[in-house]
């Protein structure tokens, strides 16, 4: 019996080594899994979730015409906010007109500049976060489903390469924490698979809502790398790769994060 157990163990070890060699990963783990029960409850219940404050603002902005326009609102073209169900699950996506890869935030700004003739909203401004949150919450619970072919193809490969590239003074790649050490500790926090499905998220450290881009910058500061400006192609490509990694998992925005 003992011998048979040993053989089974060896087979299991060999299978694990084989799977690792092929690049297969264990099941993805969202950061939600590592929250306290109280925070999990706050995230699940939108009446307690503080991210809802931004969703409410975004809902108001959806039907409000920006000053100095011909009165055209988001709703004038898109209709009711509920009709945007599933949109956030498809971003980042390539823009049909320019072929450029856009995050949901960049898409909102593209709409503003093209159709409303307005200046783009500043990154991380309350208005941009509010509109993003109001759109993202429409896709809550839906599976991430993005396209990586066509115009998005080169960016996808760039994102995958970026994810696996060591950077910063600590010389760490994203994958070294978010693939190799998921469930491990970075000081007091537990490392997740780095899914990004909860963003824009209400992060306790920020005392407010922030985008995935802001969260990625926090990681870059952590490994003492150069933090790239908002909307830089490297970041958009990385967001695309993260969304591809998270394909099939549920959108959790606005999530609660530590």
């Amino acid at each position, binding site marked *: 019996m003992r011998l048979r157990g040993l053989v089974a163990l060896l087979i299991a070890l060999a299978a694990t080594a084989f799977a690792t060699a092929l690049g297969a990963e264990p099941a993805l783990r969202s950061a939600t899994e590592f929250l306290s029960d109280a925070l999990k409850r*706050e995230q699940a219940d939108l*009446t*307690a979730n*503080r991210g*809802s*404050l*931004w969703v*409410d*603002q975004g809902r108001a902005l959806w039907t409000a015409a920006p000053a100095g326009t011909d009165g055209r609102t988001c709703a004038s073209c898109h209709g009711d906010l509920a009709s945007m169900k599933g949109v956030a699950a498809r971003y980042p996506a390539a823009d049909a007109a320019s072929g450029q890869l856009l995050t949901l935030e960049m898409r909102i700004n593209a709409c503003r500049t093209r159709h409303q003739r307005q200046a783009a909203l500043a990154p991380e401004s309350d208005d941009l976060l509010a509109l993003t949150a109001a759109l993202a919450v429409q896709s809550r619970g839906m599976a991430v489903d993005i396209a990586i072919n066509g115009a998005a193809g080169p960016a996808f490969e760039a994102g995958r390469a970026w994810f696996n590239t060591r950077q910063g003074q600590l010389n760490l790649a994203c994958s070294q924490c978010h693939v190799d050490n998921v469930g491990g500790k970075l000081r007091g926090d537990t490392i997740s698979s780095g899914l990004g499905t909860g963003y824009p998220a209400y992060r*306790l450290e920020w*005392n*407010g809502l922030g985008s995935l881009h802001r969260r990625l910058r926090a990681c870059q500061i952590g490994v003492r790398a150069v933090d790239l400006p908002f909307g830089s192609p490297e970041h958009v490509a990385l967001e695309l790769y993260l969304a591809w990694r998270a394909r099939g998992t549920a959108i959790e925005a606005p999530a609660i994060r530590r």
Partner: protein
Amino acid sequence: MRTRRVTLPATAKAGEIIEIRAVILHPMVTGHSAAGANTVARRIIHTFTAVYDGEEVFRANLGTGVASNPLLVFTTVATKTGDLVFTWIDDSGETAVETRRLTVTPA
């Protein structure tokens, strides 16, 4: 106007205990700063009250240990149909008021 959200049932049976949630967007500036740093005036919500049909049923005195965007969850007993008035008051004297109608049906 500060964004806020109050959640409570629209109707309840007489004698029923109802849960109320009130959350408001507020930075809750503590005014605490490191020695030598520029001082900032404290600006927190120091008082929250809930008045049900003219009677105060809940009051919270908040301190500097409370995080931004405070969420308060409390209960009251549904007695009769009336307005619930929720008031947040901060250090600058700014007041936010939210009113909700509760319809009470006989038990």
